[in-house]
Each structure stands twice: as C-alpha cells, then as structure tokens.
C-alpha cells in the first residue's frame, strides 16, 4: 500500500505541493459549507447597500443637465470607489480572520488536527494550506466589485493606479489579518474569541501605537518631518489607504509631500505576515498537544452543572483571560482618554482620528464580548449538554435569563465602561454641542447594550451553536444601527446629500438629521430589545437540545 517515492522537479514546484494537501481539502470543504454561501450572499448584500448608499449620497450632484453636475461627476466616481474600497478593505480582513480562525479552531477542538499532525504533513503545510485557501475565497469576493469600479471609473476622478494600489493594500492587509487569526486561534480555539482578541491586537497595532508615537513625536517636532510621515504611512495599512490616494479627495496629482510607495508598504505587510505566520506555525503543535487531556470534553462537568443549578452564573463569559484582559484594556483606555485630553489641550488635532477609531473599535469589541457572553452562556451550555440540566432545577425561566444577562454584563463591565469613557472623551473634545452629543451618546450606548443582551438571550435560546448565536446577535445590532437607521441607509444618504449640496440648508440641518437618525436608532434598539426578551422567555423551552 505504501508508495512514497522520489518526486520530480515539476512536482516539487507545484503550488499544490507548496501549500500541501490541506489547501485542496479546504477548498473542497469550503464549497460544500452552507455558511460559505451565506457569507458570500451577506457580502454581496452589504456591498449592494454600500454602493447604493454611496450613490444616494451624491444624487444631488448627478444632474448632467447642469454644468455643476457635469463638473462633479468625477467626485461621484471617487466617492463610490472610495466607499467600495473602504468596505472591501474592512470586509476582506474580517473575512480572512473569520475563515482562518474558524477553520483552525474547529479542527483543534474536534481533535482532527491532532490526527493530521501524526502524518508527515508539516505544521507549515497546514498553515500555508489554510492561508492560501482563505485568500482565494477572499480574492474571489473582492473581484465581484471590479465591474462596478470599472463602470464608475468612466466618470473620471479615479485612476487605475490607485484602484490597483488599494486592491494590493487590501490583499496584504487581509493576509496579515489572516495570519493574526491563525496565531490567535492557537491560543483561543473558538472563532469569536480569536476575532475579539484580533480586534484588540489591531486596535493596539494600528491605533494605540501610532497615537502614542504621534503624540511623542509632536513633542519633539519630528512629526512634521517627511521621513516620519513616510514611516507612519508605510507601516500602517489604514494610513496607507489614505496615502495611496483612493480615500483622499482631491486625489494627489503632482506627487505628495512625503514619500509613499504602496509596493514598499505591501512588502512590509508581507514581511510582517510572514513573521506572524512563522510564530503561528511554531505554536501549532504545542497548541494541539499542550493540554494533558488534549481533546475538548464537551460533556457537562460536575462543577458546571452545580454552578448552573445554583446561580446560573455560568458559561463562556466566565473565561478568566477575558476578565484579566478587561483590566488591561481598561488601563489602556484610560491612557488613551488621557492622551486625547492632553492632545486637545495642546491643540494637537491629528490625534482625534486615532481617538475616533479607538472609540469605535473598542465599543464594537465590547459589544462582541457581551454578545459572546450572553448568547454563548446559553448556546454554549446547549453544546456541552448542561442546558437541559439547568432547566430541570427549580429556577424560574426569567430568573435564569436574568442571571445570564447579568453575568454577561458583569463580566464585561470594565470593557463597556472603558469604551464609553473613550467615546465620551472623544465626543467632549470633538463635538461642538458637547452636552447634546454626550447625552445622546450615553443613551444610545445603553439602548445598544440592551439590544445586544436581549438579542443574545433570544438567539442563544433559539439556536444550537454559540458561533451562530453570536453572529445572529451582532448581525441584528449592526443591521439596526448601521443599515436601517445609520450611515449606510440609502434614504439617509439621499437626505444628507440634499442638505449638503442645497444652499438653502445649513449645518444645523445636518446636525438635526444626525440627531434624528440617532434618536430613531435609540428607540428601535429599545423596542427590539423588549421584543427579543419576551420572545426569549416564551421560547426558552422549545429548542432545549
């Protein structure tokens, strides 16, 4: 049966051999998974909404009957291209991290990877196979938007060079995100844990470090030096997207103030990805075999069951790392708040961009952790078989749900408070109407938390897998707050466009539009939250197993 002879030069250089048999298997499996089609459908739906939203935002400019309309068509094309490239940039990184951490984590959890490690296939082949297969799927999705970009390019205002640059920067950023996902999956075997940790790493690498560097360099007057700006642009994919010109209007024509080459940036990101991949490869075998018991025991443990029956404070929310990590995040958030206030006092406005992204990123991670804690507390117990045991105790249904929600909030309290502190700090320094902005921000935050907790309870009760419940919970939140009553609502885009380009309206009207939209989101969050809580209590004993 054995036949492992020598291989020819052609076979040696074959891409399939370089990536190993894992690449072939991953592609075959990916084409059969319903969730792959769901992800693609979701990506296309979101891309359509994003394009529609961008288009509606420039509707007021699209009247070719007027000279103004004709003169602004290039801007319309740029706006669409910039929006699409921004969406692709974020989506590609998120999808890569999700694909790879989900693929690696599930194989470690099931023990399948342990079996594969007893074959001559190396850890390097496994990692490369997974990385290439994930990349191929993401590139396929990115290609979908090329016809749209080709059409809008005809209006002018967008060069193929900048489109190509944004595509390459997106690909290398996605590869880097994928390798981070692989590395973190060797520590946390559930995709949502790995993605949350990845988001924290991203915030640290691309927001906290540059913000600290900017503040420190501003003090030494090195910040304005071309070399400093070049280094900051070349080592940060978000800054690189701006520097490449695709996110900047008007597009740079006669050269920039400082050196930037997307090729150098891509090489830097490729090198960084190679280092992370090497670390992940090195850790893989240890990750699979370090545990004395190796395999995940999904059977309910005695202590779990006892704790479930006793108080209901149980579930993935009790993961010790996140509790310890929350403290570290809280301290970092406090430092960022100080940084924002200091830079505001010193008149350093550039730091506001980092503050905005940090506030947004930290808030999203906090909501993700709440969703994981609440939805996972129920769905996770279903996976382990502890849920039916809990339901046979004298605890009331609403009491169990209340405790689960309380545990989710308690375990993430530091994270939520930190995120809100940064948000308030940012609004207090950046917004002209401080009291109104801060007041609405806090109320919106409370409503958002309520929606996420309620949706988490409902989807935890209704669905069987933690990952599905977390995705459904976050999907509901994002859909309500970003698509239905948010930035990506085409109707909002059209109203914004009418106000912005109509001389009869003022900035007060724009502020009122934003306030109105925020208020609608707040009411909708609260209403849906109540609906989900009622449904969760009603359907709690429907899908027990």
């Amino acid at each position: 049966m054995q036949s492992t002879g020598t291989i020819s030069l052609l076979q040696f250089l074959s891409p399939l051999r370089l990536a190993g048999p894992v690449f072939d298997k991953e592609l075959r499996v990916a084409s059969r998974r319903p969730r792959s089609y769901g992800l693609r459908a979701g990506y296309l739906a979101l891309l359509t909404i994003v394009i529609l939203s961008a288009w509606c935002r420039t509707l007021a400019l699209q009247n070719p009957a007027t000279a103004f309309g004709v003169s602004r068509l290039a801007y319309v094309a740029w706006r669409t291209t910039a929006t699409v490239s921004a969406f692709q940039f974020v989506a590609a990184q998120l999808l890569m991290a999700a694909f790879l951490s989900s693929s690696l984590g599930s194989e470690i959890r099931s023990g399948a990877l342990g079996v594969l490690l007893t074959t001559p296939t190396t850890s390097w082949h496994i990692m490369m196979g997974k990385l290439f297969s994930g990349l191929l799927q993401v590139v396929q999705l990115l290609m979908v938007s090329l016809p749209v970009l080709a059409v809008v390019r005809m209006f002018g205002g967008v060069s193929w060079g900048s489109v190509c640059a944004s595509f390459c920067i997106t690909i290398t950023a996605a590869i880097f995100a994928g390798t981070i996902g692989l590395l973190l999956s060797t520590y946390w075997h559930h995709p949502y844990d790995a993605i949350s940790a990845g988001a924290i790493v991203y915030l640290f690498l691309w927001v906290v470090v540059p913000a600290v560097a900017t503040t420190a360099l501003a003090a030494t007057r090195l910040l304005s030096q071309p070399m400093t700006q070049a280094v900051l642009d070349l080592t940060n994919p978000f800054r690189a997207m701006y520097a490449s010109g695709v996110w900047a209007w008007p597009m740079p024509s006669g050269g920039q103030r400082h050196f930037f080459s997307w090729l150098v940036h891509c090489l830097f990101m490729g090198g960084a990805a190679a280092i992370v991949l090497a670390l992940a490869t090195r850790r893989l075998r240890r990750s699979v075999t370090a545990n004395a018991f190796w395999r995940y025991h999904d059977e309910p443990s005695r202590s779990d069951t006892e704790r479930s029956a006793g108080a209901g404070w149980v579930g993935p929310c009790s993961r010790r790392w996140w509790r310890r990590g929350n403290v570290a995040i809280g301290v970092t958030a406090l430092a960022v708040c100080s940084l924002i206030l200091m830079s505001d006092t010193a008149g350093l406005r550039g730091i506001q961009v980092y503050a905005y992204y940090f506030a947004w990123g930290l808030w999203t991670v906090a909501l993700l952790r709440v969703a994981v804690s609440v939805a996972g507390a129920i769905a996770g117990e279903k996976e382990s078989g502890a849920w039916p045991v809990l339901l046979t105790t004298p605890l009331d249904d609403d009491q169990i749900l209340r405790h689960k929600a309380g545990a989710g909030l308690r375990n993430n309290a530091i994270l939520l408070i930190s995120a809100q502190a940064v948000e308030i700090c940012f609004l207090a320094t950046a917004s002209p109407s401080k009291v109104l902005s801060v007041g609405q921000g806090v109320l919106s935050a409370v409503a958002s938390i309520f929606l996420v907790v309620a949706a988490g309870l409902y989807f935890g009760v209704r669905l069987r897998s933690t990952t599905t419940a977390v995705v459904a919970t976050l999907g509901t939140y994002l859909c309500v707050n970003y698509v239905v009553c948010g930035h990506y609502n085409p109707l909002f885009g059209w109203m914004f466009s009418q106000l912005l380009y109509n001389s009869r309206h003022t900035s007060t009207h724009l502020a009122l539009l934003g306030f109105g939209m925020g208020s609608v989101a707040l009411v909708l969050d609260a209403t849906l939250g109540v609906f989900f809580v009622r449904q969760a209590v009603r359907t709690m004993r429907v899908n027990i197993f």
Partner: protein
Amino acid sequence: MIETKKLTRNFGNLVAVSELDLHIEAGDIFGFIGPNGAGKTTTMRILVTLLEPTSGSAFIDGLDVSKKGKEVRRRVGYMPDFMGVYDDLKVFEYLEFFAAAFGIEYKKRKAIVDGVLELTDLVSKRSAPVDSLSRGMQQRLGLARVLIHDPKVLVLDEPASGLDPRARIEMRELLRELKRMGKTIMISSHILSELEEICDRIGIIERGQFVFSGSIEEIRPRLGLHSKVRVKVLGDPGRATELLAALPQIERVEAVNDYLSVTFREGETTDGIIARTLVHGGVDLVYLQPEQLKLDDAFLQLTKGIVH
C-alpha cells in the same frame, strides 16, 4: 519494534509518565492497560511524535521519536481515543486526503483507498459523508485511515470504545488479520476480556509506571496466586469437601453456589488427584474445571485505582 527507555513526561507538576521502560517485539500485539489518568494516552502520544518526552527516549523501528519525527510518522499509524473527523468530506475523500498527507502519489491513491475500504468493510459507505457515520463506522474509518500508508506499527488508543458487541467482535477479527499481515500493534482498552483474547503480551500501568509487563500466563506466579479448580458433584457436597480437604496438596475447599472451589497449595497444580480421590471415595463427579485467571482480577489486584 517499539522501545522506551526511562520515558518521563511531566505536565507542570503532574508526572504523567515516570521512567517507563517498554519493549515490544515486531509482530506482537501488546495490550496497554491502566486506570484513567494512568499515562497510557500520554505514552502513546509520545510514541507517535505528538508529545515530546520530558526525559528518557522512545524508539520506533530503531528511530528516536524525538529526533526522527518525520520518519517515525511514516512508520506509525495512530488512532486516538476520540477521532475527530472533518465535516463535509466523504469517506473516500477523507482517506484520499490522508493518503496525500502521507505523500502517496496521486495515481496510486484510488487503488489504496479502495483496498483499505475493502479491508475494513466500508465499501458500501464509500461516498457517505464522514460526519454522518455511526460511532462504529467512524472507528472503522479511523482504522482504514491508519492503514492508508501501510505502517509497520499501529498505535490504537481505545479502538473499541463505544462500539456495540458485533462491532467489537469485528474489530477483534480485524486486529487478528492485521497481526497476520505482520503489523506490530500497541492497543489500549478498558475491555480487558478482549485484550486477553488477542494480545501476546500486556502491560499494566499505574501512575505512569508499569506494575506488570509480560504475558498473561506470567501474571499468576507474579501475583502469588495459587491454582484453583471448580468441582461439581451430585448430591451432598459435604462428603466431597471432607475428602478433598484431607489431601496434603489442597490448601482450601470452599462451597460457592452449586460447586466447590478448590485451591491448591503453592506449586501444586495436579487436578488429576481430585478426580481419583472423589471417584474412589464414591462421590459422583459431574465436572472438574480449572479456574482461569481473569485479566480483570489481575488488574484489580495489581492496581490501586490511584489516579493523578
């Protein structure tokens, strides 16, 4: 074929395997027995290169598992106690994937996969999704996977766990067939009666150390156990008890249910004297049966049930 020298593996303060010396000859079936947490699985994982020993060494076919990992993997087939399968793969795809992982040429894979499917009686499930197979079928698939690269050594961790009686018997027959094919097999199981039937040698491990290693026949003298026979007679067993208790070779005669359990003195094993004594004494003998030492009894006597 398999050898360990003072093999030790620690997990922090926990000593999972402690200076274990093991020697398994080529072509043998070696039964690896021990309570949960005794260090069986850890030893097996070291042998298949999944874990590094803390100290000591282990050899497969003369190759050091710590230094020649890749060569060792080509010679060993490992079946873990819990076999994780890849979702969304069919049975033949699963086997072809592992054939590719073992570097078997593309052209030869189909024939090899068909061969192991036939050997493990999985031909009818060739195109079934692996995650739809029953536990027994998955265990067979695991065995098929183990055989895909024709290894010299098979390391099987609880291959019969969770199987129904028929599947267990079939698994036992399959292991005998593999022995006939010349494979060296190291197998752990909690179903000791099965090991008793197929193993050439056994090793009983507790707290990471062997408490016994050798053939099943060697256990009795090692434990200081005396030979026993069961005697069933017609009518009142009192007369038989009197006659047998008077014999100098007999240590003890006990009435157990409807028969007599006769224990010989140390070194005495002749049961012919019992038949002669009873017949000459006018007792009607129904049957005379030497009592076999059960592996379960030996296991209970040798181990203290202490786990880490």
